């Protein structure tokens, strides 16, 4: 059946309205500004914290790259603030009953920025290219899974065939990595497409000076924006320039000295001052997916024992860590999912409170007794916890390690913190860690399978090495469950299980934070927190 009735993934389980930024400036907020008449023209300079690796959606794995090419490429569908799937380049779609084929009707008025017409061939080209191992498109390939092949029905109709049914497939099509690329441009630039990206988005690529800036300009023909965008037509800005400014002080300084109009990733300690300054606004949006989570490695003794893990759960005062380090600008995470995700279990909030006595008691029960130096021992072995974290100190994660080190010392656990550039070898190859933290930006709770299923795919896999048949079963069921209520219930079971078994220590939900001059109006964010520049204008 090919009508649009079977449209989106429906009911919203999340409680976060991620679509709009929560502006917290003393000055008129972005939403209010959006109500004013937008000004045409001008240039927005936007300081990024890191450099994109490539602007080829198929190949990039970095969020920062997505923030840039989000404006260059469009997707077939879009997710709104209520986790519902809405049309974008596809006007309507249908799913076969076995869940194995998706048929999309495409917009007919769309052109790539290089003039190439957008059609079913382009869609097929984009997806097949991702499957081609020569593209080295591992990130988008995993988002595209279980896509097997596609069939062009006519110029504007395409059928996508899956190898197995997946409830996540449609949602995943909203991911930036599955943006539709111009086949002619790919042919033309080959390997270098990432430095010469061409899509159908509201901005077209102009130039990229590595480590300095990336310049985009208005795509004047654009009028196919999704309904989630405040401006479906051509962008107001003439030019959009991303500056790459890795050093925090410099980045914030460049906004304060008005060298740029906006800067991303504002460190918590600077937020208060910027908020207090009437020349600036601070915009924050929660990123969806998995929060920053510390995984406890169950392959290692004594962390294979529940009581030991629970001791960590009680011994670590996450609330204090989040409050101290992020000064109230980040939310504490309570579950394996972020609050905006479909299926988020809000009941877990405040369900675990730090309790040193309980932690001590649990460790006592396991036979770990406090030694002369305050560290617990058993059979002549000290109770140590090998805490691995990556470098650089992104989002103050290293500082979390330092605080946990001090907190656990109080219950007699010696934490050896190892900060390494080479997480891949340490964690994923050698399995040499007791605790390792990670987070993931994602659009569908199916992401949980990648972390908690016994046979989690990929090298990253099941970091905690949790293995439970009941858990596996819930995850498998949820991946294909058509009934959203039931699906949400399954995911809640999963979250509950994770909490009860102290599989992880969820730490914080990362808010994407932007500081901008008050002249910048209409800056909004999509459902995963990527900025949408189409509606932005500069007030004179």
């Amino acid at each position, binding site marked *: 059946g090919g009508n649009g009735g079977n449209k989106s993934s429906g009911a919203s389980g999340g409680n976060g309205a991620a679509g709009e930024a929560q502006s917290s400036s003393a000055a008129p907020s972005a939403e209010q500004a959006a109500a004013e008449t937008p000004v045409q023209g001008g240039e927005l300079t936007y300081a990024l914290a890191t450099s994109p690796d490539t602007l080829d959606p198929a*190949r990039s794995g970095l969020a920062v790259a997505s923030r840039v090419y989000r404006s260059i490429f469009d997707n077939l569908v879009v997710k709104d603030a209520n986790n519902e799937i809405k049309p974008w380049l596809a006007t309507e779609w249908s799913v076969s009953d076995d869940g194995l084929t998706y048929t999309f009707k495409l917009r007919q008025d769309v052109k790539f920025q290089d003039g190439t017409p957008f059609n079913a061939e382009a869609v097929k080209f984009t997806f097949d290219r991702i499957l081609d191992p020569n593209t080295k498109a591992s990130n988008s390939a995993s988002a595209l899974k279980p896509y097997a092949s596609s069939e062009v029905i006519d110029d504007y109709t395409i059928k996508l065939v899956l190898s197995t049914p997946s409830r996540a497939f449609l949602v995943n099509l909203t991911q930036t990595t599955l943006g539709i690329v111009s086949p002619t441009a790919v042919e033309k630039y080959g390997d270098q497409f990432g430095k010469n990206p061409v899509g159908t988005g509201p901005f077209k690529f102009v130039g990229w*000076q590595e480590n300095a800036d990336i310049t985009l300009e208005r795509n004047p023909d654009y009028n196919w924006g999704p309904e989630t965008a405040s401006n479906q037509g051509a962008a107001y800005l003439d030019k959009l320039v991303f500056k790459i400014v890795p050093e925090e002080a410099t980045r914030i300084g460049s906004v304060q000295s008005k060298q740029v109009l906006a800067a991303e990733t504002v460190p918590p300690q600077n937020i208060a001052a910027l908020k207090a300054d009437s020349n600036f606004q601070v915009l924050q949006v929660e990123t969806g997916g998995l929060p920053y989570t510390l995984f406890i490695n169950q392959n290692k003794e004594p962390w294979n024992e529940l009581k030991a893990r629970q001791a960590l759960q009680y011994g670590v005062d996450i609330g204090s860590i989040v409050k101290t380090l992020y000064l109230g600008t980040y939310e504490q995470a309570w579950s394996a999912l972020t609050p905006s995700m479909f299926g988020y279990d809000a009941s877990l909030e405040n369900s675990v409170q730090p309790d040193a006595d309980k932690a001590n008691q649990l460790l006592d029960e396991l036979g770990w007794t406090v030694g002369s130096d305050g560290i617990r021992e058993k059979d002549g072995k000290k109770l140590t916890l090998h805490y691995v974290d990556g470098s650089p100190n992104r989002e103050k994660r290293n500082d979390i390690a330092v605080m946990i080190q001090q907190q656990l010392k109080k219950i007699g656990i010696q934490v050896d913190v190892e900060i390494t550039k080479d997480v891949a070898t340490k964690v994923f190859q050698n399995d040499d860690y007791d605790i390792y933290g990670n987070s993931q930006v994602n659009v569908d709770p199916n992401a949980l399978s990648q972390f908690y299923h016994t046979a989690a795919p*990929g090298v990253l896999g099941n970091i905690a090495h949790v293995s439970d048949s009941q858990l596996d079963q819930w995850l498998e069921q949820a991946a294909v469950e058509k009934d959203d209520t039931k699906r949400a219930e399954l995911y809640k079971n999963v979250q509950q299980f994770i909490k009860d078994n102290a599989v992880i220590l969820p730490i914080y939900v990362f808010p994407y934070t932007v500081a901008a001059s008050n002249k910048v109006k209409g800056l909004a964010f999509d459902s995963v927190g990527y900025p949408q520049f189409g509606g932005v204008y500069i007030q004179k």
Partner: protein
Amino acid sequence: MVRTIIGRVLSSLLVIAGSSVLVFVIMYLLPGDPVDSLIDPASATPEQIATLRHQLGVDQPLYAQLADYFGKLLRGDFGKSLLNSEPVLPKIIEHFPATLALAAASALLSVIVGVLLGVLSAIHRNRPIDVIARIVGLLGISMPTFWSGILLLLVFSIHLGWLPAMGSDGWKTLVLPAATLGLIGGGFIVRMVRNSMLEVVNEHFIVTLRSKGLSERAIMYRHALRNALIPSVTMIGMLVGEMLAGAVVIETVFSRQGIGRIVADAIMAKDLPVVQGVIVFSAIVYVLVNLLVDISYSYIDPRVRRAA
């Protein structure tokens, strides 16, 4: 002279080849894998990784990779970045001017300030000027650059708003980074010039000059300084190395384009061809500059010219 230069060039080639082998070996020994940054560990399978490693050639033994690399290098092919398949040479050529501008500006700054302060300091030995010059010089070499850089940035661009905080377009963006980097060079040069001035002033020929009735000014600036500069010139050659190294930090602090940042990133990502390329390139620059220094040496110091 020409003969010496040819000899120098030949031995320089050897040195450059040596440094690239050395870097190659170090990088080869680095743990981790360029593939890690290419692939999402969450989804990649070991087979995928193996394929990718094979495609990139990083599964080859060291000698094979080395041979391959040098084979290409001889043909002028610096290879492609493992991360984004970008050819390395154009990348370096794109980024080098910014680093060159930074290095040149800070070298200039440090030479001007350094020589000036060094001479004043020597002439007014143990007077307030000397004390100030020496303290400035010492501070220059005693402060971590990233710290002094950020301090300068806070003062001059955030508080006073005089200069841009970042970027690499236009001379204005050059001022703060060059000042930060020049502070070190200046510090070294002040000390060097001061010491050699004090040494030269004790030379016999200074007495001759006085006995000829020359003014102190002529003696100091026309004769003593020129003699004192000779050892300092070598120093300037060495400074280029320091400047290139300093660029790694400075370019990050001030968000400048440049090969310093490229190479730092590439080292972290184990992007061997890029690291190699930059090292070979900067070795060439270093060798060239020192060759120039040697040649200019023979113009300043006739004794060297004769020996050559």
